[in-house]
């Protein structure tokens, strides 16, 4: 036991002395980070990364995270982390504790965009040899972006040693980038240039295109330029193909947003015949419910924040549905058979609801965060698909399917259809029509609330949220054919993809105008929408 302890101590001493040795070399450079403003920091950073010492990595990471401060009393550069009102200081190199200091006693070393770029470049160069493959990969990407010629040697060594195929490809791309854009290009043989451009073409994304364009337009030799230009055109063709697919995806994604917004209306307006101008406000209430749920999670369970959306879904459904039921019981039920008056009353309600939300939550936007599984994007071939949009597409279809099942396969759905098709007869058959009415309106409103949860991820959470979607929702329902859920689905997807298809050619504004004109003309051809209800009910 004692021996073990002694051994441990010895190790500690060795480690401490070795870091101390490093620290001695880096100390003035680290110290220089704290002076001379942005340019001073940048200069010191360049020297720090030139030194090529991995011991600098934690310092640079602290700088990136905004944890590097200057102690005002003696100008020492320290790492400071907030604890309560004060800061806990540590030495950036030795990590020795330096005690606490009040906020006024330290000054942050601020960074701007060009420093941020420099930081990721030097971190890239310094971590190419890291034992962690993920770190090496992002280091290679960083070097690819910075094209820092001084990293070339390390890069070559790293490539020689690299076992992981993917990481090696990334490193080779980075090397090709440095070779083509740097001074080395003039000394390269044609075959080497060819190989480098091929490597970049194989990468096949926009970043590669940026580089190749740069080479083609630069002062490089004619051969290089020609090769780069050829690579650019290959790449552009490929990207144009993916751009078309991407546009299709945008159409699908916009369509699914429209579907979500409209599907609740397809119930209250399509099935029940209530011209529900307060539909948008139900969406808004759903979004605000999400905000409240997230606030609760932020305050009480920040660790579970990623689950907040999942909790918000049932909550929004219940809150919006509840408000819907209250509205139905207090106002709408007196107005059945007088659809135009429902327009008036629900318009009044929508004004009041907007103002109510404005009074309670204030007129400004509220922040609804994205859980980690909904942020960011991934590449699928040449497509960039954002997780948020992907989930919304999936969610929209799931809601649609669930609603379809509920209406077609359940007792409740059967009652809804019975009541809307023939109220007196349904009543005679023992269906409690009043209750079914309330529940149907509640269902439609609740689905609008679900839409609110999804829309809170991509749009403003403000009292005006609903206003932006109400007209589009009506267009979708009417275009698809009132009273037909499939019509709403097809309508939403058609209008969404049409909008996205027109946008690149006509611009956003004109595209939207054209879609509206298309709707007007389409209704002339099919006065009852895409999927018209057939039978006598139509003329009623």
């Amino acid at each position, binding site marked *: 036991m004692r021996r073990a302890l002694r051994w441990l101590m010895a190790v500690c001493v060795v480690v401490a002395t070795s870091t101390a040795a490093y620290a001695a070399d880096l100390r003035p450079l680290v110290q220089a980070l704290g002076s001379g403003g942005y340019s001073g920091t940048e200069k010191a950073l360049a020297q720090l990364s030139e030194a090529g010492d991995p011991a600098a990595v934690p310092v640079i990471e602290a700088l990136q995270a905004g944890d590097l401060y200057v102690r005002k009393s003696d100008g020492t550069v320290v790492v400071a982390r907030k604890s309560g009102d004060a800061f806990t200081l540590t030495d950036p190199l030795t990590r020795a504790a330096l005690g606490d200091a009040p906020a006024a006693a330290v000054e942050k070393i601020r960074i701007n965009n060009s420093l941020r770029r420099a930081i990721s470049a030097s971190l890239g160069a310094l971590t190419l040899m890291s034992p962690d493959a993920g770190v090496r990969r992002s280091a290679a990407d960083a070097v690819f972006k910075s094209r820092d010629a001084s990293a070339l040697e390390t890069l070559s060594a790293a490539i020689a040693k690299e076992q992981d195929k993917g990481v090696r490809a990334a490193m080779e791309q980075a090397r090709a980038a440095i070779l083509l854009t740097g001074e080395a290009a003039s000394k390269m043989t044609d075959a080497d240039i060819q190989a480098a451009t091929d490597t970049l073409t194989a990468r096949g994304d926009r970043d590669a295109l940026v580089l190749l364009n740069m080479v083609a337009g630069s002062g490089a030799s004619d051969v290089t330029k020609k090769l780069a230009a050829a690579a650019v055109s290959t790449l552009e063709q490929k990207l144009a193909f993916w751009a078309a697919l991407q546009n299709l995806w945008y159409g699908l994604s916009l369509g699914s947003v429209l579907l979500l917004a409209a599907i609740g209306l397809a119930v209250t307006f399509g099935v029940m015949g209530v011209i529900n101008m307060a539909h948008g406000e139900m969406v808004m209430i759903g979004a605000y419910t999400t905000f409240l749920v997230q606030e609760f999670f932020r305050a009480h369970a920040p660790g579970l924040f990623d689950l907040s959306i999942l909790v918000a879904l049932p909550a929004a459904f219940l809150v919006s549905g509840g408000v819907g039921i209250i509205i139905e019981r207090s106002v709408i039920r007196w107005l059945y058979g007088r659809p135009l008056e429902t327009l*008036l009353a629900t318009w009044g309600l929508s004004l009041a609801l907007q103002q109510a939300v404005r009074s309670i939550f204030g007129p400004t936007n509220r922040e609804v965060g994205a859980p980690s599984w909904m942020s960011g994007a991934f590449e699928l071939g040449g497509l960039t698909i954002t997780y948020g949009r992907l989930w919304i597409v999936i969610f929209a279809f799931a809601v649609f399917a669930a609603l379809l099942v509920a209406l077609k396969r359940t007792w409740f759905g059967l009652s809804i259809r019975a009541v809307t098709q023939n109220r007196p007869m349904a009543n005679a058959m023992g269906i409690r029509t009043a209750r079914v009415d309330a529940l149907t309106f509640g269902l439609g409103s609740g689905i609008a609330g679900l839409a609110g949860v999804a829309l809170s991820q991509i749009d403003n959470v403000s009292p005006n949220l609903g206003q932006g979607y109400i007209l589009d929702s009506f267009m979708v329902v009417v275009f698809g054919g009132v009273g037909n859920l499939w019509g709403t689905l097809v309508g939403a997807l058609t209008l969404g993809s049409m909008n996205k298809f027109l946008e690149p050619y006509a611009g956003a504004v004109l595209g939207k105008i054209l879609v509206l004109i298309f709707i*007007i003309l389409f209704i002339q051809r099919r006065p009852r929408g895409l999927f018209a209800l057939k039978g006598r009910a139509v003329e009623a």
Partner: protein
Amino acid sequence: MLLRFFLMGLDRKAGIVLTILAILAVAVPVMTLWVPADSPFHLSVFTVSLLGKYLCFALLALALDLVWGYCGILSLGHAAFFAIGGYAMGMYLMRQIGPRGVYGNPVLPDFMVFLNWKELPWYWWGFDQFWFAAVMVLVVPGALAFAFGWFAFRSRVTGVYLSIITQALTFALLLAFFRNDMGFGGNNGLTDFKDILGYDIQADTTRVALFVATVAALALSYMIASGVIASKLGKVLVALRDAESRVRFMGYDTESYKLFAWTLSACMAGVAGALYVPQVGIINPSEFAPASSIEAVIWVAVGGRGTLAGAILGAVLVNMGKSYFTGALPELWLFALGGLFVAVTLFLPKGLLGLGAQLKAKLPGRKASPLSNAQPADQKGA
């Protein structure tokens, strides 16, 4: 012939409406221009332009009531015709500014100068003449309505489908007019007017004259509308509102009847817009907003659909309420307005003008009088 047409529509109600308008036309100028400012009977110019604005809205409501109340066409896009009429007048007023604009360009309006336009686009030609603008006020909304109605009625687009495509129409126009490339001043619209027919637009007398013109237009439109309704044509309109297929089967060309009323109504709305613009001093695409068309429908409903006089009353009262509450209860007025709409639909299904009949029906011991044949049937619905 024409006289007979007008006289035909003159029932007692019309008499009262016209009398009130006549009183307004006489009393307001006197109270504004000749009664001394310290007298309790003095009306400020501010009030006159407010009243003028309300009456423009009343004219829009009247036009809407003609198609909604009597033909069963619920237009949720009537503000579009109003705004187009307004733009036609605004273009005339813009051209009247001449070299007094900030850049001093004698031909081009200021917004064209700072967007670097070199010459006047063709659709601005002729608007320096008042007569041309006045004709356009009627022709452009009328033509648009005719084209739209020709297609829609022939395809038998009815009910809520028609309502929604009128919304699509006004929304498309809203977006189009927002575009600065359209040459109508984009979001800023047309503003900073100086003269109308050579008179200073800000002078008290001009304002009063505009007010009197509005009253006259409203009275004339009222007479035309009630004349149309009292005529045989009006009977057909009411009939096709209540049962379109039956009228069609009787051999009437229902589309033409509807188209006539629809176009006439759009022209009236255009006139309302044209009178509105010089009185408020600005026309901007937000007049095309779908919400403004819906608001117009609400005025008619509040006053009483299918009564003409009710439309006027509703428009004036709702807008007066809006003016008052936005000043008195700036934070709460939407509750008041929203509550009013809910209350009217729940408790006054026939609007304010139906209140009398409603009360009478409730009185015990008296047989409820059948509601006026001018009251719309509900089952037709949307």
